[in-house]
């Protein structure tokens, strides 16, 4: 029989050692999208911010839909996403405030190297989508309510196509997994350029269409309404937002490269 008192004493001491909590107001919980996390951009930026400000940023990387949901529920202090329409709604409904566009990258339509639907000659992204729908080639959709998925659905709308045609394959997975599946099934898919560059060594897909305003992918950081959730770390959230629009962070965003390619373009303007 163990001496219960001693065990409890030990356990309490251990708990104190392990659970030395960081001061609550020093932690900033940031909900963001998998693309900023997977591309390694945040790992590149945040240590500098943490060193300068003394805050500790905890990143929750998920799809845009869920990131905004977490922010709505007051589960995080600040949110950075890439779905303009959903973000506008988030702000207009009184949950978000001070939306700031900090950077953008772009979407690309990937497909088999031989381009079976012949979309390279298309004049616009929606024309390319219409061609894919008419061809017998599968289209692999993320189908997970992410920013990329929302963008894809907007493009189908513009192309006047119901995404229910024969080759339409909705997989409910993150960007990386979706790219691997598109490669296996040799179909088309919409991807952010960053994840595609990161995966380009693993897959045999090519950029069959890119460019144009329709495929621009702007990122915004938004604070959360203090009236709704007074107990969040609003000071930390504001500090992070201010730092990201500063000259140093904007320069770091422009200089961040993966495999020699610049992934994000800093876009903040007063």
């Amino acid at each position, binding site marked *: 029989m163990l001496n219960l008192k001693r065990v409890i004493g030990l356990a309490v001491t251990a708990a104190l050692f392990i659970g030395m909590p960081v001061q609550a107001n020093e932690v900033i919980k940031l909900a963001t999208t998998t693309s900023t996390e997977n591309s390694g951009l945040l790992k590149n930026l945040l240590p500098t911010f943490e060193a300068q400000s003394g805050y500790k940023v905890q990143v929750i990387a*998920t799809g845009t839909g*869920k990131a905004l949901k977490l922010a709505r529920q007051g589960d995080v202090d600040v949110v950075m996403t890439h779905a303009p329409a959903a973000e506008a709604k988030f702000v207009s409904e009184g949950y978000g405030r001070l939306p700031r566009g900090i950077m953008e990258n772009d979407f690309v339509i990937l497909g088999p190297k031989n381009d079976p639907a012949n979309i390279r000659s298309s004049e616009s992204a929606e024309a390319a989508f219409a061609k894919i729908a008419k061809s017998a080639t599968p289209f692999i959709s993320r189908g997970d*309510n992410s920013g990329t998925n929302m963008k894809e659905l907007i493009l189908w709308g513009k192309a006047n196509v119901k995404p229910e045609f024969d080759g339409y394959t909705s997989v409910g*997975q993150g960007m990386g997994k979706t790219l691997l599946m598109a490669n296996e099934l040799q179909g088309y898919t919409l991807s952010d350029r960053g994840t595609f560059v990161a995966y380009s060594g693993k897959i045999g897909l090519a950029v069959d269409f890119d460019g144009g305003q329709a495929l621009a992918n702007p990122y915004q950081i938004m604070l959360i309404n203090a009236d709704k959730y007074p107990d969040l770390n609003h000071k930390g959230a504001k500090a992070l937002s201010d730092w990201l629009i500063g000259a140093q962070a904007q320069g770091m965003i422009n200089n961040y490269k993966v495999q020699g390619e610049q992934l994000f373009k800093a876009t903040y303007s007063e």
Partner: protein
Amino acid sequence: MNEGWLALTQQALSLLFSLDPEVWSIISVSFSVSFAALMITLLPSMVLGFILAFSRFRGRWLVTNLIQTLQSIPTVVIGLLVYLLLTRMGPLGDLKWLFTQKGMILGQMMICAPVLIAMSQAAFTSVDRRAWETSRTLGAPWYSAIWAVCRELKVPLLLAIIAAFSRILTEVGCSMMVGGNIAGVTRNIPTAIALETSKGDFAQAIALGLVLLVLALVLNFALGTLRGKAEPRSH
């Protein structure tokens, strides 16, 4: 949380009872794939279990232990193995089974076979060998002799089948990897729950969770009744 538990559960129940086509398609994919995998694996596994229990050959001990070990392999490892087999570069790439129901069935067969073999072997080992020998000396052909033994062992064999079925019906790792969670094709209950949770939409996840819960209860009650019937009767 601005969505209470009650509201969510209400939404979940209405999804189920309004016969929401999406939810029921997911349920039917789950059941048809797992049922097919079970049916294909059932007979060969039972025969193997029988052979392992009744015959003496060199290496029997090794095979028995191997199958016992395979029972506890995580399903994601089986998923990985099947994925590598079926991928375009893999040895079975020409079948084009990756991200199809056929691929899922193959994976689930590999998951449920060891459970069926090991549990049926245990059942056959427990039976009195004389039942088998008697019917053989009376001139019964081997298959009807096996049938006689199986009738004797109704409950433990059913237990094996139910254990195997519930293992493949609820596994998420292999289905996600090999099936790819394609809406309306390879999206089954566990992968749908994983997806809806990652989207932050809980109503459908709860609805599907309820289906699994009810199924578990029904199966357990059925087993309980079976066991009760199989209790040795006093003469």
